[in-house]
């Protein structure tokens, strides 16, 4: 517990709540220096050797400040490399631990193999591919590192509503996968996928709930300050009750997140359920937050809309609520 509090304190000092979405490149240097890239890397591999609680606490704080730095895909990319049996594994681990960036993509890839084995298609939804050395992607032959400067690889930014982050299409056009950069074969890709998916869902859930807490804080603060009809609007019971419901939903989603984080055996559906609930709650909180802010919430002057836009993107990352609610339902039906 003490360890977690220390991490949280350090994060809040490094990324204070007042400075939303601090610059990406500075943030990247900072998270590298603070060891957050290697927080989950075992000590014998040169990492901090901390567990899922630690990374969750960090992602929670990064969500709170709408961090611009792609820590989640970076950690997942490193984890994929670490889990591999690639010959050059330790060099890559060292490189990535030192600040090189090889993100895992969090949205689906649509790739086709030609007769000669070369690949074409788009790996969509790669965060900050402009600063990446390679992308960790699931190719037909298994997970692989795809260097972004390789022949047949181009990178295109696609502007998104969520101004706190940047998404890229990594487009392959006759790309020839380098066998030395294969992380798994086709058969073991799905085991790695499940491991990474669990981590990704929990990390995103933490991002959602850190941000939801911050959005709630901003809203409550605004309600106490904003006066209409000669009283702070926080005095209007109808509005108070809505704030109470926001708080309740956030607290419940947090409890589910932490129960998933602490259960090493939690299956993908359980982790995805935690992320789905967290993302839905984040969206709900920001929607209510805009309404409770009134006019000012509709202007770029006030930051509350930035939370809403991040919430809307988070809903879609690693699969939408529709997709996961259905899978969770299907699995629960099979088990009961």
């Amino acid at each position: 517990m003490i360890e977690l509090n220390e991490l949280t304190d350090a994060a809040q000092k490094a990324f204070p709540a007042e400075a939303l979405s601090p610059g990406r490149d500075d943030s990247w240097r900072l998270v590298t220096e603070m060891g957050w890239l290697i927080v989950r890397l075992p000590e014998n591999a040169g990492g901090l050797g901390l567990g899922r609680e630690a990374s969750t606490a960090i992602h929670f704080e990064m969500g709170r400040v709408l961090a611009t730095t792609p820590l989640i895909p970076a950690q997942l990319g490193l984890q994929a490399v670490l889990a591999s049996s690639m010959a050059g594994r330790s060099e890559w681990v060292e490189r990535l631990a030192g600040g090189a960036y090889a993100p895992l993509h969090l949205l689906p890839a649509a790739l086709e193999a030609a007769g000669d084995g070369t690949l074409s298609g788009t790996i969509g939804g790669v965060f900050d591919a402009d600063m990446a050395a390679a992308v960790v992607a699931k190719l037909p032959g298994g997970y692989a590192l795809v260097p972004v400067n390789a022949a047949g690889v181009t990178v295109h930014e696609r502007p998104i509503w969520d101004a706190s982050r940047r998404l890229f299409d990594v487009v392959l056009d006759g790309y020839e996968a380098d066998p030395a950069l294969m992380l798994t074969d086709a058969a073991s890709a799905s085991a790695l996928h499940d491991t990474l998916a669990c981590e990704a869902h929990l990390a995103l859930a933490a991002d959602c709930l850190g941000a939801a807490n911050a959005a709630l804080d901003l809203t409550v603060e605004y309600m106490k300050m904003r006066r209409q009809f000669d009283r702070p609007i926080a005095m209007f019971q109808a509005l108070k009750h809505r704030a109470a419901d926001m708080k309740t939903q956030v607290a419940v989603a947090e409890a589910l997140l932490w129960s998933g984080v602490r259960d090493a055996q939690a299956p993908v559906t359980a982790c995805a359920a935690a992320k789905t609930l967290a993302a839905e709650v984040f969206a709900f909180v920001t929607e209510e937050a805009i309404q409770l802010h009134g006019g000012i919430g509709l202007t770029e002057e006030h930051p509350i809309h930035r939370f809403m836009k991040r919430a809307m993107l988070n809903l879609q990352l690693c699969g939408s609520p529709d997709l996961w609610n259905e899978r969770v339902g299907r699995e629960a039906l099979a088990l009961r």
Partner: protein
Amino acid sequence: MTDKPDLDALRSEVRAFLAAEAPAEWRDTSRTQEDFVRTQRDWFGKLVKAGYAIPHWPAAFPGGGRSLAEQKVIYEELAKADCPRLLLSFVSTYHAFATLHECASTEQQERYLPRILEGETWCQGFSEPGAGSDLAAIKTRAERKGDVYVVNGQKVWSTMAQVADKCLLLVRTSSDGPKQAGITYLLMDMQASGVTVRPIHQIQGDEEFAEIFLDNVEIPVSERVGEEGKGWAVAQATLASERGLTLMELSYRMRGALSRVAELIRDHEHEEDRGVLRDFGHLVTQVDAVCAIADQFLDNRINGIERVGDASIVKNSYSRALRAYSKLGLRLGGVEEQYIAPITFGDLNTGNWMADFMNSYAWTIAGGSEEVQRNIIAERMLDMPREPKAWVA
């Protein structure tokens, strides 16, 4: 539904006009604020010429003298033909007109009304940063110095003020007595010295609204509407100027735009997803119901049996349906909707679902927030106790 013969005739006329003149590609020419304004001016000019721009004005004006039933026909057809909404000229033809017509001097009327038809546009300087739902709390101060009022303060949420020629301005001339009693109503030239307009950057990228900063602006006393300190009553005439037509028109437009949701369902191959079909069916019913109540509201107005609170019900049900509409689109559109796409200025059902979603808040917040409407419904329709004026903690 069949109308009376004269309404049928009008309907045919309007249809014929629209078939010939309705701008087809107006969304494509409304991708920037400038293009939007140009498109709006063109369309307004055509409607003035055709006699459909100001059906609610007196018969003395070209195209005026229409009954509310006739106005309804015109707006229904404009909605069905998916024409641009008359956003730029709305304040001029409704708010400014009603204010001038009901409360202004003959001289003021003669000066301003014809110019509106020539394309002069107005904006409304009512809300302030500290006076939104609580409009009577305005602080913009006007001091009389000889023949002019000297005005200082700030207005906000003024639709299209950046391109307006004139402004309906509420100012405080006294701080004594009840808040409402010290308010005066002025007509301000937007070119006057000391007026600065700053567009509000809205979260979806639109710039429909602006702030107006007033720094020692001099407004001639002759531009006052009504007596000094009696501006609150004049403001009520302004606010009551349009009730019903817009929401009827917008509801019909939303019904037409349900095809955009159907398109998404097909594009994403949800045709056999029973959950999606149910949610779509539910939305279709919700939108039909909003059209029905907007219709009924107008019919009641036509028949003189509107009740207090009816307008609040129509507004809240429209705004919630619009939210539901845009949220279903956002959900069905999936991750693609998170990539920025061009917006259409001044439109609510564009199929750019993030923009539409954000726009839907304009209806739960502006023009009397959802919460204010709930108070009206509870207090004035259900006769529940009013919000207390003060309380003891």
